[in-house]
């Protein structure tokens, strides 16, 4: 029942069990390493099961002649991997990890090839057996690598160069690909060396570009945007602010059942609420509840609605994202919107009106003497 294969795998299983236990006891509990190790264990258990199930994958008769065994590059690659690995220990972690990957990959290939070559006396069959086991790994790995390289390199280039140049570069690259493809298609007689040459050049080019792009890093405006967080500020003044008010939204797709629709119509501000037949001047808002106002501007000028959040700071869901507390003036607002446009504003008033020194209001900068009182009982 237990032959070489099963013994090997059962041994490995036992060993990795011990490793896992040791790891959990001495190193860390339920962390990434532990997870990884338990995955390894699971895999080994599965493998052992398979091995035993397929009665140890041993053929009754051992192959006699080793003539079938062909030359293999895997030993070489394995060694290279080890070199990298050692190198990595001294130089940089990246090489180390890369080395590990190489070694593992090479060993797998080696193992399976060896196994398959002694599978039977039929070389063709052995090769096909090897293929069946390894191609499902090799193909996706190669595909993903190629794909990854192109995607990564290309995106780095785009990030490095300016917006407009980016678009151009994009179209140029695409048409190049098309062109080359067309040429190859039209010239079936093309020498394979030439074809592969061109491909190599292209590949090298894109990779080089990618590395260069990585070197250059993000283009200036992106860096700036990241540092200053342009769009997280809300500037609620009367005048237009550079970023916050840029290209204001004019329509709402979701406008059902708000707590009130605040309308600015010929200089008068009024709140339209379901259940009240005529426009109101004060809105009663449940404390500590996310409510959505909709602001509609019927004024010819561009207007914004500003909600004061009171002295006892209300949680303004709009700046909840960043706890640096951007809305230093204790208020929040919509963008500056033109006539006929509408915008929504979602707020949580967590403190009642009685806790405020000044009443809570909804106002429109530049429209004097008009305010909707927000009552938070």
């Amino acid at each position, binding site marked *: 029942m237990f032959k070489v294969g099963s013994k090997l795998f059962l041994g490995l299983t036992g060993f990795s069990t011990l490793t896992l236990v040791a790891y959990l006891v001495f190193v860390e509990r339920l962390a990434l390493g532990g997870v990884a190790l338990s995955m390894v264990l699971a895999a080994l258990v599965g493998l052992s099961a398979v091995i035993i199930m397929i009665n140890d994958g041993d053929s009754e008769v051992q192959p006699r002649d080793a003539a079938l065994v062909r030359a293999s590059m895997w030993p070489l690659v394995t060694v290279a991997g080890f070199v990298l690995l050692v190198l990595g220990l001294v130089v940089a972690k990246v090489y180390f990890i890369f080395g590990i990957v190489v070694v593992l990959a090479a060993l797998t290939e080696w193992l399976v090839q060896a196994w398959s070559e002694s599978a039977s006396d039929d070389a063709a069959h052995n090769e096909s057996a090897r293929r069946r086991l390894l191609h499902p790994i090799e193909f996706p790995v190669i595909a993903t690598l190629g794909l990854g390289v192109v995607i990564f390199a290309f995106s780095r280039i785009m990030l490095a160069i300016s917006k407009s140049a980016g678009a151009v570069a994009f179209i140029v690259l695409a048409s190049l690909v098309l062109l080359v493809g067309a040429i190859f298609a039209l010239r079936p007689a093309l020498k394979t060396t030439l074809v592969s040459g061109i491909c190599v050049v292209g590949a090298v080019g894109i990779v080089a570009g990618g590395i260069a792009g990585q070197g250059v890093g993000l283009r200036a405006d992106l860096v700036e945007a990241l540092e200053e967080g342009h769009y997280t500020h809300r500037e609620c003044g009367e005048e237009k602010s550079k970023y916050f008010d840029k290209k204001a939204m004019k329509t709402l797709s979701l406008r059902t*059942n708000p707590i009130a629709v605040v309308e600015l119509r010929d200089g008068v501000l009024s709140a339209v*609420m*379901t259940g009240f037949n005529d426009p109101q001047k004060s809105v*009663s808002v*449940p404390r*500590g*509840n996310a409510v959505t106002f909709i602001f509609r501007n019927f004024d010819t000028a561009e207007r914004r609605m500003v909600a004061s959040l009171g002295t006892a700071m209300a949680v303004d869901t709009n700046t909840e994202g960043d706890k640096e507390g951007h809305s230093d003036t204790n208020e929040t607002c919509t963008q500056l919107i033109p006539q006929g446009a509408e915008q929504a504003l979602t707020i949580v008033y*967590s*403190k009642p009106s009685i806790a405020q020194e000044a009443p809570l209001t909804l106002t429109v900068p530049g429209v004097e003497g008009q305010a909707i009182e927000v009552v938070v009982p």
Partner: protein
Amino acid sequence: MNHRGSFGRRDTTPFSVVMVKVRRLGQRVLVATGAVAVLGSCATNAPQDTWQPKGPNAKMIDDLQQPVFAVAGIIGIIVSVVITYAMWRYRDRGQPIPEQTHGKPALEITLTVIPALILAVVGVFTFRVIFDLARTDDTELVINVTGQQWWWEYDYPVQNEWGITQPIISSGQLVMPAGTKVLLRETSRDVIHSYWIPALNGKRDAVPGRIHTLRLEADEPGIYAGQCTEFCGLSHANMRMEAVALSKEDFAKWIANQQAAYRAPAEGTLAKEGESVFLNQCVRCHQVDGLKRPDGTLAIAAPDENVWSGAAPNLTKLMTRNTFAGAMFDLLRDACRDDVWKAKSAEFGAKYLAGVDETCLNVNDLRAWLRNAPEVKPMYANPALLADTNGKYRGMPNLGLSESDIDKLVAYLLTLK
């Protein structure tokens, strides 16, 4: 084909089949007719009976659904009878295998058109009722209703025509004038709840971030039971509500009392000590309007810092209500409670406005609640499990009050009316 036939014989005789069909039929008929008959008269049904409308809105629904139930019942009976007859008439009595007829289109179409017509008629009436029930333009009094795990908050926005000059907040019982078109503006602070007073109208979900309206109108003063009907978590079963209809005069009295200023208990009384206990413990979440700290500043509750929903019941006039803990428990002990619930609509107002006093207080439940709330009502109040809510409770935690503190608190709470 003998073996085949034998299966037909071996099983129970068609007659007993008929008997059981009849039995099952009987049950249905009983429910259908019996229901209509009995429900009409007998008043001892469950307080949430959906077939006893007590207001025009619910009446509208009832008038629509009764005929539908009747028609459905009749059709059900007809079908069952036909099937039963066929089973008896055409059972295998060794007759030859019949002609292989594939159907009669004419018959088919007739039998398709008839139900279609019936439904069309029903549809017309349905259509009208739907739009009548959705009206909001004839509203006389607006009340904001906010649901949260697991109680309802009622907030009466300023409406001078009703003498509401400052917002009133209440919970547990919705107090409204009888014979008045009341409109609820519903929303929720956390998950979806559903507001339902069967005797007054169908249910309407309270969805966070949305305002939904529900018409309520009670013909007579009285108290009407309801229950949250959208699954809302652990204590969904304990999230109840009661609508209290008062005559317009009584309602005016109620409004006046709700707006009356806070009366601190006299110095040196047990209640006074209770007040300080309240200030140390309860005021963290529960607002009592007008309550001042020893240093004279207004005590302002901060449920937003302690409870996930950001609110806790306002206790200013607790003893004018008959329930607590999301209407899960009564503040009145049973005798007094029945006295109010069963009161004739004429005396009802007076009895309700009397509120709760020491003799009638359901002290056991109240003390149990103060002693350890999560024990009597399942709530997410285990401090260990509050990671996702960054430390905030969902529901009232166990405050670990001493018995003497509880005595003081009960004494104090009794003064809140």
